[in-house]
């Protein structure tokens, strides 16, 4: 089965894939903007997504994926630095990060990527927009400024969600060791 879907929030995407799995639709692959599923037993697998460090290639990424697989976790799909994992429910609860400080460092990784993209788009939008202020005939700048502004606004949502998750974790970490 295929489904058309676009997510702005990685936590929501993961939740949706797990909801589908609990109905017997097991995630197979995502090729923008289509998700493919196989029919199976309901609630057989638990899925987790992860953004790898850097661009998701090279020795470090391979070593990490190899390690994760050696613990019985399957890599369902890897696209650049974005990975879909799953584990059979018979092996119990499935979390890649089991303590607060490693959860926080993972969220910081996501935050860095989103905020870098947002700042770059904001700067580009401002440059193109400022140029427009003085010469309205520059149609191309107008298009690019609009595009940058759109991307910037679209990024504010996942960025705000990430900041919210960071704040919650930090509050916990001040009191609990993990």
């Amino acid at each position, binding site marked *: 089965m295929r489904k058309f879907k676009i997510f702005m929030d990685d936590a929501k995407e993961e939740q949706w894939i797990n909801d589908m799995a609990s109905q017997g639709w097991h995630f197979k692959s995502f090729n923008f903007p289509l998700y493919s599923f196989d029919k199976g037993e309901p609630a057989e697998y638990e899925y987790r997504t992860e953004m790898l460090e850097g661009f998701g290639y090279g020795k470090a990424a391979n070593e990490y994926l190899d390690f994760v697989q*050696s*613990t019985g976790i399957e890599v369902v799909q890897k696209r650049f630095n974005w990975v879909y994992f799953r584990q059979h429910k018979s092996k119990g609860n499935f979390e*890649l990060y089991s303590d607060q400080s490693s959860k926080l460092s993972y969220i910081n990784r996501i935050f860095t990527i989103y905020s870098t993209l947002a700042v770059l788009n904001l700067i580009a939008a401002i440059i193109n927009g400022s140029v427009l202020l003085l010469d309205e005939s520059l149609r191309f700048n107008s298009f690019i400024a609009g595009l940058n502004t759109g991307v910037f606004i679209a990024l504010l949502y996942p960025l705000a969600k990430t900041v919210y998750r960071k704040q919650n974790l930090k509050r916990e970490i001040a009191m609990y060791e993990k």
Partner: protein
Amino acid sequence: MQQPLTEGVYYILLALYEPRHGYGIMQIVEEWSDGRVKLGAGTTYGALKNLQEKKFIETLAGEGRKKEYVITSLGKQIVEAEVTRIKELYNNGRKIIKAEGDL
């Protein structure tokens, strides 16, 4: 001054008094803690990297999935100091809770 270790790092170091690979560590820690401490694969991987950098553990021969880790003598010193610290916490806690129970 000994800094408190996180629970995960403490158990990983204890597990490596015998050579083990990553998954072996996760299994023995779950067993020792009676199912309470389930280390995530990402957390374990990150901790092993950090502990190697600090020279608290080292790798034995073996590649990729079969790579085995073992504690160093520096790591053992850290664990021993940590057990002393935990004993202090335990004794103080027991003393206060017990005094309360007598009231």
